[in-house]
């Protein structure tokens, strides 16, 4: 089997999964972006550089020293793919994943996502998209090692077995390393047999993270840690208003600061280069800049709210139309007409954005933690007027990503490239926390208006949902996912395809415009719709005199996977039974990125302060390669969701962001941490995602519990801002 066929088959697998799933890449496989075969093509030189041994495809090498290396197409940003992808390769190769070396892959078509002609990490698809191709990669190498042993020993290959890096015959055994050189001379088989899942030794069993040791000793290298010989450190002054520019710069004070090497105007603003980061930051602070405000530089959050509210009164582009919701709503049944609002949010990765670039005469090297290697490389090549092959991207560990490190304009990469070219030496740009927080590319803010009616049994019969928000796909490499004449599907995801049985459902989208740049943020559109749809369900339950759990159960008839998840969470949280004094429960369920997650929040409210004591979380992600990793992602998602639900808001005043650091953009701290109890609900569903699907139910579950505690309906996030 060649890498070419591995890639193609992987793409087919992913297509099935994506169609079965939902979410951003789920929308995904939309044909214009699908190029069969390109996912597996190995570019010239990639394998030649690998050294001696067996490397039959882009993903694996077995060396004569008995070391085994896996190349990961995806970036490790905490979500655990360093472990799960290695586990997959180790399974079919029959090598304990704990002794496999892990490398982050260079940019090459061989590492493209099976569903897109580019290398990226997103949509909670790393493990599912790597599953088949890494199994085939491992099985191919194993078959070639077996063939060499069989030839040496004069026996049939199928009389031999393998276990943890050894081939074993009746009387003999050989380490893979002893066979590797000879195996490397063979042509890869055109077909390989994959294991029966019943025989799995590693896949499907919890495996501790493989990247813990470097991360508890300080050795793990993040982009911000890269040091190159003769490297200059840069800090950049950026316009205080989105889209603003520079009129004039007085840099006399800056140039007087010891360590400052120079001042350079670039597209992003005014950069100060220095011998160390502190001098660069001080030099930046000493610049006197006359900024040219952008048009719309008096913009405020209030302006946006008023604009979006007006849009909600107009018909939008149709994202979903089943039955005739407006007609039913005009029929005079019991109904609600409510408005929900969510703010801009910063990704706030703990590692501020940064990049090291070194441009030489005819080549460029980039070191950074990125989620979108191919488009970063293409953007750098365009800027430099070079062929993409002349640009190398070295991916490091990412100190958090959450979407921000996959920027559609390669913003944090290009400024380093531009500076290195101008300075003629390696340059590291380090964003300050304030730069990072105020630099835009936020989760969009949005308003939703929902008119919904119930019948005499209290069951929803009509739901007319209008959303005003910015598109994250327009202008991005993923714009092809938007259908002709259709709205950005990520704005309506989770509403247009809601699992609840509503006979008359209409979802409309207004793609609003704003000078504030926006980007995908962990769970994308579901971070809005999870809150709005579950909130409206609770309001309809109240209107019809039904229990929030019971209404959801009634609307999931015929959906056994959803019901199992909902009931698992409710049962574990003792829904409907007495709670600790002052404690109240709320529930929410959202299907996203191919997985179904239900959460029950246990909350108390004292003196207006919301305290979350426990989050019970049930997930059906289909088959889990590393169940321990899925549980960790649910805990992570709960914290991410709670930071947004309780505290998160980027406000806009005078055309710029109000917040700037963790004092005014607080994240959840350990003393606010609830106990998170996670249940993996087994099913035979297709493999879903894990990184994102735990986020959407958090805010609505907490809001639901706050209503149970206080009778106060939360229609605006964060909860602390609700009137």
């Amino acid at each position, binding site marked *: 089997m060649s890498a070419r066929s591995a890639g193609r088959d992987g793409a087919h697998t992913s297509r099935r999964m994506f169609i079965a799933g939902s979410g951003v890449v789920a929308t995904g496989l939309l044909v214009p972006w699908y190029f069969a075969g390109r996912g597996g093509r190995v570019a010239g030189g990639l394998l030649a550089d690998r050294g001696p041994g067996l490397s039959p495809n882009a993903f694996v090498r077995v060396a004569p020293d008995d070391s085994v290396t896996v190349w990961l197409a995806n970036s*490790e*940003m*905490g*979500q*655990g793919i360093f472990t799960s992808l290695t586990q997959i390769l180790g399974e079919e190769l029959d090598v304990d994943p704990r002794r496999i070396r892990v490398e982050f892959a260079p940019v090459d078509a061989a590492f493209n996502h099976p569903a897109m002609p580019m290398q990226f990490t997103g949509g909670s698809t790393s493990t599912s998209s790597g599953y088949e191709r890494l199994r085939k990669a491992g099985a191919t190498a194993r078959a070639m090692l077996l063939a060499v042993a069989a030839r040496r020993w004069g026996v049939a290959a199928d009389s031999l077995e393998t276990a943890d890096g050894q081939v074993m015959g009746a009387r003999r055994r050989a380490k893979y390393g002893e066979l590797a050189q000879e195996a490397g001379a063979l042509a890869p088989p055109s077909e390989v047999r994959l294991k029966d899942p019943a025989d799995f030794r590693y896949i499907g069993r919890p495996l*501790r*993270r493989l*990247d*813990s*040791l*470097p*991360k*508890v*000793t*300080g*050795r*793990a*290298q*993040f982009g*911000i*840690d890269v*040091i190159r010989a003769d490297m200059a*450190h840069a800090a950049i002054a950026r316009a205080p208003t989105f889209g603003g520019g520079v009129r004039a710069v007085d840099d006399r004070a800056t140039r007087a600061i010891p360590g400052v090497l120079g001042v350079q105007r670039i597209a992003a603003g005014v950069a100060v280069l220095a011998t*160390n*980061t*502190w001098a660069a930051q001080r030099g930046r602070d000493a610049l006197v800049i006359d900024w040219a405000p952008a048009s719309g530089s008096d913009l405020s959050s209030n302006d946006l709210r008023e604009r979006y509210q007006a849009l909600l009164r107009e018909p939008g582009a149709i994202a979903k139309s089943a039955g005739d919701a407006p007609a039913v709503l005009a029929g005079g049944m019991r109904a609600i007409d409510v408005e929900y609002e969510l703010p801009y949010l910063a990704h*706030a*990765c*703990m*590692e*501020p954005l940064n990049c090291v670039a070194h441009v030489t005469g005819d080549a460029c090297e980039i070191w950074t933690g990125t989620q979108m290697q191919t488009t970063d490389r293409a953007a750098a090549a365009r800027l430099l007027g070079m062929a993409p092959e002349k640009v190398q991207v070295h991916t490091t*560990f*990412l*100190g*958090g*990503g*959450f979407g921000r490190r996959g920027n559609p304009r390669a913003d944090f990469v290009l400024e380093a490239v531009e500076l290195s070219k101008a300075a003629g030496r390696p340059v590291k740009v*380090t964003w*300050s*926390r304030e730069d990072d927080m105020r630099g835009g590319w936020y989760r969009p803010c949005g308003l939703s208006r929902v008119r919904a009616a119930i019948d005499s049994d209290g069951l929803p019969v009509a739901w007319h949902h209008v959303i005003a928000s910015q598109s994250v796909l327009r202008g991005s490499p993923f714009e092809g996912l938007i259908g002709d004449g259709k709205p950005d599907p990520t704005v309506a995801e989770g509403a247009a395809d809601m699992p609840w049985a509503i006979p008359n459902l209409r979802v409309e989208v207004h793609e609003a415009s704003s000078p504030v740049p926006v980007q995908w943020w962990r769970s994308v559109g579901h971070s809005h719709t999870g809150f709005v749809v579950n909130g409206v369900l609770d309001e309809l339950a109240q209107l019809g005199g039904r229990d929030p759990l019971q209404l959801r159960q009634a609307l999931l008839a015929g959906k056994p996977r959803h019901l199992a998840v909902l009931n698992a969470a409710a049962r574990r949280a003792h829904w409907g039974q007495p709670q600790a004094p002052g404690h109240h429960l709320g529930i929410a369920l959202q299907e996203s990125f191919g997985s179904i997650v239900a959460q029950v929040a246990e909350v108390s409210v004292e003196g207006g302060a919301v305290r979350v004591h426990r989050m019970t979380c049930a997930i059906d992600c289909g088959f889990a390669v590393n169940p*321990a990793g899925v549980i*960790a992602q649910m*805990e*992570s*998602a*709960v*914290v*991410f969701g709670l*930071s947004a639900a309780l505290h998160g808001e980027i406000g806009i005043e005078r055309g710029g962001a109000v917040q700037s*650091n*963790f*004092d005014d953009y607080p*994240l*959840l*701290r*350990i*003393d606010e*941490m609830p*106990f*998170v109890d996670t249940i993996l609900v087994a099913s035979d569903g297709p493999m879903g995602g894990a990184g994102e699907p735990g986020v959407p139910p958090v805010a609505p579950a907490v809001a639901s519990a706050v209503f149970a505690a206080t009778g106060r309906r939360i229609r605006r996030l964060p909860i602390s801002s609700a009137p």
Partner: protein
Amino acid sequence: MPSLEINGARHELDADPQMPLLWALRDLAGLTGTKYGCGKALCGACTVHLDGSPVRACVTPLAAAAGRRVTTIEGLPADGSHPVQRAWVELDVVQCGYCQSGQVMSAVALLASIPAPTDADIDAAMRGNLCRCGTYQRIRAAIKRAAELLEAPR
């Protein structure tokens, strides 16, 4: 020219005494395990020890560290054999890992002063350390596990 003892080795740093210890460690001494997160002692990613006590290196000028013992994450065993590191690995605490140098240094300092911390002790000692990946539940459990490992006879 400030003279520092970092992880047992003497360093003469050619730097302004007002330079934050964080940048001296990272850019001058090449010790990048200590992380920059906020620059204002709001996140704890830069936590190191001065004479065994935890400080935020981003707001500690070199002058304040001169003549004192500085311990960074690189000053813990490189093989991960410190009980806090062992507990962190055993309980799968890390995710992206960026904040964990600071988390580990705060936890080591906590256990040095309170060998069997309560939940309230852990909250008080660790609330200055942010984790965007949300590993707090495991940090709490790992501190308790490390306390057991520290108590157990070697």
